[in-house]
């Protein structure tokens, strides 16, 4: 009798699922690494200017303020650049209280090192930016970071 007997005919062999966990874990890791958490949905156009003398930003001590034209979804608000903080449009006068609120939500030992990240659309008027800066001075949040895309140095 032959050792290698023919397999029974007519039955489909089951496909091994032993590697399924590996595939799932791989996908999981991939998405864990590639996902960028964004805490506020942008209601404005936000394409940053570029600069080559950039420094890295420490996220844990940063309050973000966005500014730019309302995007397509909020077209009814016109084309005048607006300021956004968290999930709402704010006026220039509200910047100060928003900053205080943002500082209050932060870790206590970082509160004195707060940096305000200004994510401002490049087509905004610099006048609006200087209004924001004036409010930041009033709120005594004096460190600002103009967020920019990195441009390669020639």
């Amino acid at each position, binding site marked *: 009798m032959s050792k290698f007997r023919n*397999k*029974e*005919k*007519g*039955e*489909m*062999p089951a*496909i*091994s699922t*032993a*590697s399924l966990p*590996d*595939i799932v*874990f*791989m996908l999981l*890791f*991939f998405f864990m*690494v*590639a996902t*960028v958490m964004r805490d506020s949905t942008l209601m404005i156009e936000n394409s940053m*200017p*570029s*600069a*080559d*003398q*950039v*420094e*890295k*930003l420490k*996220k844990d001590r*940063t309050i973000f303020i966005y500014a730019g034209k309302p995007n397509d979804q909020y077209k009814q608000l016109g084309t005048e650049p607006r300021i956004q903080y968290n999930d709402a449009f704010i006026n220039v006068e509200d910047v100060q209280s928003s900053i205080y609120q943002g500082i209050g939500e932060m870790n206590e030992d970082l509160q004195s090192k707060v*940096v305000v*990240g*200004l*994510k*401002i*659309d*490049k*087509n*905004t*008027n*610099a*006048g609006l*930016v*200087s209004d924001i*800066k*004036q409010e*930041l*001075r*009033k709120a*005594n949040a*004096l*460190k*600002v*970071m*103009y*967020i*920019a*895309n*990195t441009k390669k140095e020639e």
Partner: protein
Amino acid sequence: MAKRSAPEVNAGSMADIAFLLLIFFLVTTTIEKDKGLLRSLPPIDDTEVEPPIIKQKNLFTVLINRNNQLLVEDEEMPLKDLRQAAIDFLDNGGGKNPAGQSCDYCKGKRLEDSSDHPDKAIISMKHDRETSYEQYMDVQNELVAAYNILREREASRLYKKYYPDADKVFTAMLEEKEKNQYSKDEKLNERISTVKALFPMKLSEAEPDKN
């Protein structure tokens, strides 16, 4: 019965393929990190102290108008020349600093009508409300670049021996500080502030006129 069974597929190497892919994605994906220009705003000053008089030659004025044109020291200038103009101004070293020392590390032309000393040299920038933010950032970038280039030069003059392989010594120093942020290195901090003190960043911004 004429049906034939398909041979079983060997799945043993599936894990290897999966790990290969995982490693590939791990290596190629970059996590997006925000970067930008860090600047400090001046605190609001309510005291009515007369501001000190600054000699015209120690002041480098940059104006941006509503059409995004630059007026540097009362002359129109394209953006690409701004960096060099700012370096020439800061590095001039024509006179003495408040402590009475002349700038022995400056490599400028030592002109009479340009800045006395990097300690005294102030860049003043003013823009219109209608200036675009993009142009404003480009100008800021050029001015910060001027300071960085000069600091880089001084850092490599003083501390090149500690970083023989580094292309940019000052950047290497800052990176090292970043890496060791939980174990403070006094010597490194001292060196960084020495370099910064040689070319202190005195970049003032005037509020745009309200009209």
